[in-house]
């Protein structure tokens, strides 16, 4: 089971409303390389890991990703806070407003709802870990695109932190992958 702590992993305090960035950023909640998919990918794959090391790593990284989904949702909440219907319209978010008003719903940047088809569980630890390594690199690349789209330091601090987490997670998955190859574990 999980226990909730009423805090974020890293501070999110965005003071400037930016509806366009909210629309772009939502893909890191519900898009193909997003944090929700990352959490579900690792927490689903862990059952077929061949040893306790793999079960521990996927559990612990999957748990961190749940915290990242909360951070992305927080950013979107703060980026859209106090927006009027007219502002939503002007920013091209009227279709989003129609479906969800000011609620936060996991979609990609084009409004396509989150889907478990964005990740795989093959039951083969090498195949799963290879996917996890790719997923971390794709998420890193997406964070760089988002960093290129804003100058707001409040936003950049969090995006940079989250991007760097992809770098560390990639390294941990690679270490495990290499060890399993060496041991011939499958």
């Amino acid at each position, binding site marked *: 089971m999980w*226990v*909730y*702590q*009423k*805090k*974020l*992993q*890293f*501070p*999110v*305090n965005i003071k400037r409303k930016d509806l366009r960035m909210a629309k772009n950023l939502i893909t890191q909640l519900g898009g193909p390389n997003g944090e929700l998919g990352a959490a579900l990918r690792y927490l689903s794959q862990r059952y077929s890991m061949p040893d306790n*090391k793999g079960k*521990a*790593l996927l559990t*612990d*990284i999957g748990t*961190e990703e749940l915290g990242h989904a*909360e951070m992305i*949702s*927080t950013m979107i*909440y*703060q980026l859209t806070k106090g927006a009027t219907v007219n502002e939503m319209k002007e920013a091209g978010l009227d279709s989003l407003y129609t479906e969800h008003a000011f609620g936060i719903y996991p979609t990609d940047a084009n409004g396509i709802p989150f889907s478990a088809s964005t990740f795989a569980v093959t039951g083969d630890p090498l195949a799963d870990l290879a996917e996890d390594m790719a997923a971390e690199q794709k998420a890193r690349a997406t964070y*760089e695109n988002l*960093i290129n789209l804003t100058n707001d*330091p409040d936003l*950049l*601090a969090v995006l*940079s*932190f*989250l*991007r*760097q*987490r992809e*770098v*560390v*997670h990639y*390294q*941990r998955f690679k*270490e*495990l992958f290499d*060890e399993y190859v060496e041991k011939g574990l499958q």
Partner: protein
Amino acid sequence: MNNVNNTYYQNYSNVNDITNIKNEESLQKNLTSITEGFRRGNIFANLYWPYKKQTYNFVPSNNRQKLLLDIMENSFYAHELNLYLDNFPNDREKIEFFNKYNKKAETLIIEYNQKYEPLTLSGNELKELPWAWEDSPWPWEGV
């Protein structure tokens, strides 16, 4: 693309120039200080891979924010060691470090629970009315 990659790897190898290593952590040359590691999102100097400007300062505006930031920094340090130890379970020095920062984070959380509002329900006795768990700010609303 080549230019982008060159920039990455250049930064990657120059990383020690901007590492702020404090006394005790200097025993562990590979580890940053807790504050630096937290700002970077990575406590391992040899794994740090920056993109553009990567670190930002936080200036807490009151004691509550300062304590919360301390909790986040210590928790993050322990979490990073947790992931490392999952892969390298026989590193005694890192286990000692994990215990130290994990304990520190727990102590600070209890202090925060007592001084301000509950961050956790476990190990936290709620005596006041109304029920303090719902009567305190949620993380997305800022503290």
